[in-house]
């Protein structure tokens, strides 16, 4: 089979993984050196496809042959898809070609399980090793980790890769048992633990060989089972806490060809995915806890963002005086982000904040208005009920699943 045909099959098979970030790597440069590639911590999105997603890395599977039969996956063994397999050298060639063209910042390599977990993992590691050692490649490498693989192989992967990831796949153990019967939650968490331990070992050891300096991430498929958002975000919070994950990616379940009856054949729940990312951001950067976002079981609202939802439930906190309030509280005002918060703090050191200052900052004034006070402004809406406010502030038109769908 021609390389180009393999590429078409193995890119098509890889598109369902949402994580394509190239951020978090340490500073590396090839200036004046043999080889190719640099990283500086910031990811670069080299292109965008018409689904609005960023193309940052060459994201392919080494092979889409797979012994497992995960119901949500286009590559499961019972799926009637064309199959292909790259040699490690072929992946290296493609990575370097795309890299020189400045089309990508590196490689994100994953694979179906062939022969055994160890064999598959060895093949993945081999690609990374070739890139680093034979070609002095200093760009970004993200390797998917096969959970059942020998911890020694995972440790080796960590020496070559910037990022490692083990996919948690589904939000609950029960769903994993139903939809991915060959996968074990135990070995998934074990692999996360192995990576976490690897990271900890080199921490504060400047001379130790590096280990996955961009940390680990995972992906959770949303909408293939009926788990609610509360369970999903409490799960994510536990993963952030237990294994210090850099990111949890949420992937709206996208219908697959030859879809088995066990998973929905419906448009991907993109708005739900979007709200989960917003809520996840509140957990990672705004100091919210999952418990604050959910009083009990249930989903995030689709028609308002999670910060607004929280504010409407906690009117006693508002309105906040922008000239006095703690920055962490200002950041909890709907429509005001971390950057605007910082700008408000800078400005109020010089003079009193006035209403019109807000209009010039990058904030969503309509959303923020009911929740703050300035030296010349007090919200009329402070006395409106939350029900009324929600009616005024919800996204319109009522979000449906995006896209044409017939």
């Amino acid at each position, binding site marked *: 089979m021609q390389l180009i045909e393999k590429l078409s099959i193995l890119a098509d098979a890889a598109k369902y993984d949402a994580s394509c970030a190239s951020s978090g790597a340490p500073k590396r440069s090839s200036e004046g050196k043999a080889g190719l590639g640099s990283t500086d911590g910031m990811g670069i999105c080299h292109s965008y496809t018409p689904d609005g997603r960023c193309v940052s890395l060459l994201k392919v599977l080494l092979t889409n042959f797979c012994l497992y039969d995960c119901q949500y996956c286009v590559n499961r063994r019972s799926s009637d898809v064309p199959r292909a397999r790259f040699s490690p050298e072929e992946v290296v060639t493609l990575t370097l070609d795309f890299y020189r063209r400045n089309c990508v910042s590196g490689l994100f390599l994953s694979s179906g399980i062939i022969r055994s977990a160890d064999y598959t993992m060895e093949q993945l590691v081999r690609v990374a090793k070739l890139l680093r050692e034979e070609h002095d490649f200093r760009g970004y490498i993200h390797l998917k980790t096969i959970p059942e693989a020998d911890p020694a192989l995972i440790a080796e992967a960590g020496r070559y890769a910037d990022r490692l990831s083990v996919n948690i796949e589904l939000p609950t153990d029960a769903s994993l048992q139903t939809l991915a019967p060959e996968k074990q939650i135990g070995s998934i968490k074990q692999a996360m633990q192995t990576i976490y331990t690897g990271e900890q070992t080199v921490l504060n050891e400047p001379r130790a060989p590096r280990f996955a300096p961009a940390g680990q991430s995972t992906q959770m498929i949303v909408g293939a089972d009926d788990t609610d958002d509360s369970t999903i975000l409490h799960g994510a919070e536990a993963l952030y806490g237990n294994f210090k994950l850099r990111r949890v990616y949420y992937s709206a379940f996208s219908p697959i060809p030859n879809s088995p009856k066990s998973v929905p054949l419906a448009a*991907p729940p993109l708005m739900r995915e979007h709200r989960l990312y917003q809520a996840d951001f509140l957990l990672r950067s705004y100091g919210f806890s999952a418990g604050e976002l959910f009083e009990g079981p249930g989903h995030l609202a689709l028609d308002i963002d999670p910060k607004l939802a929280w504010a409407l439930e906690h009117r006693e906190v508002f309105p906040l005086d922008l000239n006095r309030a703690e920055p962490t509280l200002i950041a909890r005002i709907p429509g005001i982000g971390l950057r605007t918060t910082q700008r408000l703090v800078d400005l109020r050191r010089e003079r009193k904040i006035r209403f019109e200052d807000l209009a010039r900052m990058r904030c969503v004034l309509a959303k923020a208005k009911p929740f703050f006070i300035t030296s010349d402004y007090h919200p009329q809406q402070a006395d409106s009920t939350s029900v009324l406010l929600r009616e005024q502030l919800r996204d319109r038109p009522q979000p449906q699943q995006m896209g044409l769908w017939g």
Partner: protein
Amino acid sequence: MISLECDNLFGTWREQARWLLSHQVDPSQVSWGEAQAADLFATDEPILAGLGPFQARIPKALLELLESAACYHGDQRWSLLYEVLWRVSHGDRTAMLAGDKLGSELQRRIKQVSREAHHLHAFVRFVALPPEAGPELPEYVAWHEPAHDILKSASQHFIGRMGRHRWMIATPLDGVYYDGQQLIHQRHCPEAWQQLAQNVEDPHSAMWLTYYSHIFNPARLNPKVMEGHLPSRFWKNLPEGKLIPSLISEARTGKQKDGQAKMIGSKPGKRIASGQG
């Protein structure tokens, strides 16, 4: 009214601004570059030699902000900077801060300039010249059309990225060439560079185009979000730009039911017997 010309060089503008400030020339009394229009009304005052008595203390951070905002192509490119400088040197630091009317515009320009630098890092596409081209020519060339003056500083990024390779980026205004050792910046891009970058043949572009078409998930079609991140002004210089309209319309006419690209569905599939290894 004083009309000045700084040839769009920050260093020149800075010297002029230093002089103006030392003579306490109010921002309303000076303009840059709009000389032709301004001259009709201006009563040119003779420029005094030597610095005037006013000694302003300028925070270093301010100069950095001004230098970065100076890369912005737009109205009042230089006079806006002088107004900021004037206000800050007279004790009003809000002129640098978002929230203030002038400060917001300054910050907006800085943001646009830094976005444009990212666009360069992201959307430059190098094409290899044939190896016969010889050591006098770059190994990789790119044509790029930035909206602001970012090429000189932002192209440094590629020195780390491309190692010892020789590469060139030509634009309608300026150009850079890295000869394997140093970066040469030409304020007026030589025509030969422009020709080279615009006419290079790319016989091996099929791999990247194939990848781009297949990593797209038609079931998630969302062209608005794409355009927000990848403004259409860049499409014409991106090889994948030509594919975008057809990928969108294909997705709209039926390929949206699942994520698979059409061409994959038409190939024979293969189920795998369990236990096979």
